[in-house]
C-alpha cells in the first residue's frame, strides 16, 4: 500500500516496522511530529517527551543498553544539548540498534540558527544517513537500526525541514518484532573510565574502517551513470533540486550515507566525468571531504552556503539561467507572527515594558514574540534555558561594575524544565538579584501543545505527576516571600509583583500562571481558571482614540477611523480594558 506521508510520519513508520520499542524526544521544529506520529503505535512502542534533548538521548541510550531498539529525535540545536552523551555513546557502541534523528532547519524557518549537523557525525564519528524523500526517511530509519547493530555504533539520521515536512509517496510494510537482546554485564564496554575509554577509542578507529568499506559498496551510495560531461554529487533534499536542474544527461552519485564518506566510490565516480559538481545545502561538508582527498570539484564557489537551496538557486548558480517571473509594483505588507488574542503572555509583557532601567533576558518559545513591537519587551534570546543564566551573569556583572540597571529573565514552563532549573540554581547559589519570571501557560506552546513535566499528562496520554514549580523554587533555595504567583492577565497584580521583586537585592521568582488560550483545557484547568467565553467591546462614545489598547499589540483590535474589537477573535482577556484610560472598554459575558 502506498501512502502520502511527511518525512516525519515516515520516520515514525520506519521505527514501527523495524520493531523499535523505545522512543524519546523533546519537541522542536521541524522534528516534533516524529514522536507525535509514533504515539499512534503506543501499543508496540513506548514513547515519551523528555524534559530536554540530553535526557531524551540518555534515556534512549539506556534502552539500547538494556537490549531494545531505540531512538531519540530532536531539532538541530537539540543535538548541541545532547552532544555530551552522543560523543561517548560513539565510543561504547550499542546493544539494541539506536538511531538519533537530527532535524536541521536550513533557512531558519523556526530556529535561532542554521547549523549543519552533518558536522556532528564527523566530530563524534557516528554513522550518518541522509534521506532525500519520505520513502527514504522510512527505509533509512530501518536500515539505520540494522547498521547500528551490525557496526555496534549509534546512527544519525539527518533530516532537514523540507524532508521532515514534505509529503511524498511511501510503500508501507508490516512490523517485524525484535526481541530484547538478553542482558549481559559488560563493564568494559559501557563504563567509560579513561582505562576503558582508551580501548574503546582504538575500537572506534577499526569500526570507522569497516563502516567506510560498507559505505563504498552500499546500495544507497550507488551512482547513476548517464552522460560523462557532467557529474553531480549530492545528498538529502539538495539531490532532488540537483536532479531536476541537471536533468537526464548528467551522471549522479547520490549519497544516502554521508559518514563515513565512500571515498573510493567518489574517486571512481569523479574519474568518469569531465566536470564534477557538489550540490549541498549549508556547509561544504561533502566538498571538504573531496578537497581533502585532492578531488577537484565545483561547489561553494557558486552554491550559497547559507539558507535553503531550491531549483531556482541551483539553476542560476550552475547555468546562469533565471526563470521569467510575473512581477507586481505594489508590495504586500509583512504578516509577522504575533502573540494570539487572549495570550496570557501579552498581559505580562505589557506590564514589563513599562519598567525602566532593566535588561530583559529572554528565551525560546511563543513568548519570544514579546520582543516584537509594540511590546518590544525582550533584549536577548540565545538558546533554550539561556534566559535565567544570562540574566544571572548580567546581574552580577552590572552589580560588580556599579551599574543601577537590573535584570529580569523571562522563560516558559517547558523551557524552565528543559534547562532553566540549573540556571535558577546558579542565581540562588551565587546570590544574584536577577528576577526570574516563569511564564507558566500549562503547555509547550510554540511547537503545538506537547505535554511536559508540568502539565499532568504524558505523551501517551496517561495522567502524570506535575512538577510543583513554587515548591521546586523553594527547594532550590528561593525564599517563600520572594516567590510571587500572579495571573498575568491581571495587570495590577503583575505590576505589583514586578515592582516588589525589582526592589529586592536577592533572588526572586515570579510565576505568571494562566493557560495558553489555544490549549485544549484539562478538567483541572477548568477548575483552576475562569475560562468562560467572554469578549470586550469598545464604547465608541467614550473612546478618544488614544490607542492605548492598540499598543497591547492584540490582533483582535483594529485601528482605523474607529478603534474596534473583532468579537470573533477576542477572548475577553481584558488586558485592553485595563489599559484604557477612559473606561471605554467593557467586558461582555
Amino acid at each position, binding site marked *: 500500500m502506498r501512502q502520502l506521508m511527511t518525512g516525519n510520519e515516515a520516520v515514525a513508520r520506519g521505527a514501527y516496522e523495524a520493531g523499535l520499542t523505545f522512543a524519546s524526544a523533546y519537541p522542536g521544529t521541524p522534528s516534533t511530529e516524529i514522536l507525535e506520529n509514533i504515539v499512534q503505535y503506543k501499543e508496540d512502542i513506548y514513547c515519551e517527551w523528555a524534559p530536554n534533548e540530553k535526557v531524551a538521548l540518555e534515556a534512549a541510550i539506556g534502552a539500547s543498553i538494556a537490549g531494545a531498539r531505540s531512538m531519540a529525535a530532536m531539532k538541530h540545536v537539540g543535538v548541541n544539548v545532547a552532544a555530551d552523551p552522543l560523543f561517548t555513546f560513539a565510543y561504547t557502541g550499542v546493544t539494541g540498534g539506536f538511531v538519533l534523528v537530527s532535524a536541521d532547519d536550513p533557512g531558519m524557518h523556526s530556529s535561532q540558527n542554521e547549523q549543519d549537523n552533518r558536522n556532528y557525525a564527523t566530530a563524534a564519528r557516528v554513522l550518518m544517513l541522509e534521506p532525500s524523500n519520505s520513502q527514504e526517511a522510512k527505509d533509512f530509519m530501518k536500515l539505520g537500526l540494522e547498521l547500528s547493530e551490525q557496526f555496534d555504533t549509534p546512527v544519525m539520521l539527518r533530516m532537514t525541514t523540507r524532508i521532515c515536512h514534505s509529503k511524498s509517496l511511501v510503500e508501507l510494510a508490516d512490523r517485524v518484532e525484535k526481541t530484547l537482546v538478553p542482558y549481559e554485564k559488560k563493564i568494559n564496554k559501557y563504563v567509560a573510565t579513561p582505562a576503558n575509554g582508551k580501548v574503546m577509542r582504538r575500537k572506534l578507529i577499526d569500526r570507522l574502517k569497516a563502516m567506510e568499506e560498507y559505505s563504498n559498496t552500499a546500495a544507497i551510495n550507488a551512482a547513476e551513470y548517464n552522460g560523462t560531461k557532467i557529474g553531480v554529487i549530492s545528498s538529502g533534499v539538495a539531490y532532488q533540486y540537483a536532479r531536476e536542474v541537471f536533468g537526464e544527461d548528467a551522471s549522479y552519485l547520490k549519497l544516502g550515507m554521508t559518514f563515513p564518506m565512500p571515498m573510493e566510490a567518489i574517486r571512481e565516480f569523479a574519474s568518469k566525468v569531465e566536470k564534477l559538481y557538489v550540490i549541498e545545502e549549508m556547509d561544504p561538508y561533502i566538498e571538504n571531504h573531496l578537497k581533502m582527498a585532492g578531488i577537484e570539484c565545483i561547489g561553494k564557489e557558486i552554491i550559497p552556503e547559507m539558507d535553503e537551496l531550491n531549483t531556482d538557486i541551483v539553476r542560476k548558480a550552475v547555468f546562469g539561467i533565471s526563470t521569467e517571473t510575473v512581477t507586481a509594483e505594489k508590495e504586500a505588507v509583512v504578516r509577522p507572527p504575533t502573540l494570539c488574542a487572549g495570550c496570557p503572555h501579552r498581559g505580562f509583557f505589557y506590564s514589563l515594558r513599562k519598567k525602566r532601567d532593566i535588561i530583559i533576558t529572554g528565551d525560546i518559545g511563543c513568548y519570544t514574540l514579546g520582543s516584537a513591537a509594540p511590546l518590544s519587551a525582550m533584549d536577548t534570546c540565545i538558546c533554550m534555558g539561556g534566559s535565567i543564566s544570562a540574566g544571572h551573569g548580567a546581574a552580577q556583572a552590572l552589580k560588580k561594575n556599579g551599574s543601577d540597571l537590573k535584570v529580569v529573565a523571562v522563560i516558559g514552563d517547558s523551557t524552565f524544565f528543559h534547562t532553566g532549573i540549573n540556571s535558577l540554581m546558579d542565581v540562588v547559589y551565587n546570590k544574584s538579584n536577577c528576577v526570574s519570571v516563569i511564564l507558566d501557560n500549562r503547555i509547550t506552546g510554540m511547537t503545538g501543545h506537547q505535554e511536559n513535566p508540568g502539565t499532568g499528562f504524558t505523551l501517551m496520554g496517561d495522567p502524570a505527576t506535575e512538577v510543583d514549580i513554587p515548591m521546586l523554587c523553594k527547594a532550590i533555595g528561593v525564599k517563600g516571600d520572594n516567590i510571587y504567583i500572579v495571573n498575568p492577565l491581571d495587570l495590577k497584580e503583575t505590576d505589583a509583583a514586578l515592582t516588589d521583586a525589582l526592589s529586592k537585592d536577592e533572588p526572586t521568582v515570579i510565576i505568571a500562571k494562566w493557560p495558553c488560550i489555544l490549549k485544549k483545557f484539562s478538567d483541572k484547568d477548568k477548575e483552576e481558571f475562569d475560562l468562560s467565553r467572554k469578549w470586550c467591546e469598545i464604547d465608541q462614545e467614550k473612546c478618544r482614540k488614544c490607542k492605548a489598547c492598540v499598543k497591547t499589540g492584540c490582533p483582535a483590535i483594529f*485601528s482605523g477611523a474607529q478603534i474596534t474589537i473583532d468579537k470573533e477573535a477576542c477572548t475577553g482577556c481584558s488586558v485592553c480594558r485595563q489599559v484604557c484610560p477612559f473606561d471605554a472598554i467593557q467586558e461582555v459575558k
Partner: protein
Amino acid sequence: MSEVKNILLVGVGGQGTILASKILSEGLSQAGYDVKMSEIHGMSQRGGNVSTQIRFGEKVYSPIVGKGEADVIVAFEKMEALRWIEYLKKDGRMVINDFEIPSVPIQQGIAKYPEGILDELVHKARISVFKAGDIAAELGNSKTMNIVLLGALIKAMDIPGIDWEEVIRANVKKGFEEINIKAFRAGAEQV
C-alpha cells in the same frame, strides 16, 4: 520536466489551506501521479502566512515550487496573491478569493492594506476573482470556503479522470460531506 505541474495554495493561518491541499494531493496520488507536497509549519497559528506547494507528474524530484514555475496559484486572501505572484508562470492561472485579512502592522495603523491589488494583478495574468466566503455562507456553512476555492482550483487545473467528489467524501468530517460537495461544485462554476 515540462510534464510536472506546480500548484500553490497561499493564505493565512486558519483559512483551511491544509485540508484543501490534502484533498488535492490525495486525489492526484490515487490517480497514479507521483506527488510531492510541501508546507511550512511553525508559526502559522500565530497569524503568519501559510503556503502549501503541490507538484505532480510522472516523476517529481524537488518538493518545492520555484519562482515563475506555478501553473496555478490559489490565493485564499487577496494580499497573499500579491505576495506570491512572482511564483506564477508567465502563462499561469491565478484564483483569488476577494477577501482581506489585515496583518498586525495594518491593524495597528502602522501600514496600510494595499489598495487596487486586483486592478493591478488582473493585467498581469489569467485571473479569476470571486468571494468564496460569501458563496460558502450562502450555501449554509462559511467554513467550506476552502472547498469552494478547491473547486475553482481543480476546474482551473483541468485534469480529467479523477472523481473529486469521492475524494472529498473520504477526507472531510463525517456529516459534512454533502455541504462540502455543494461548495466544491459552486467553486467550479467560478472559473
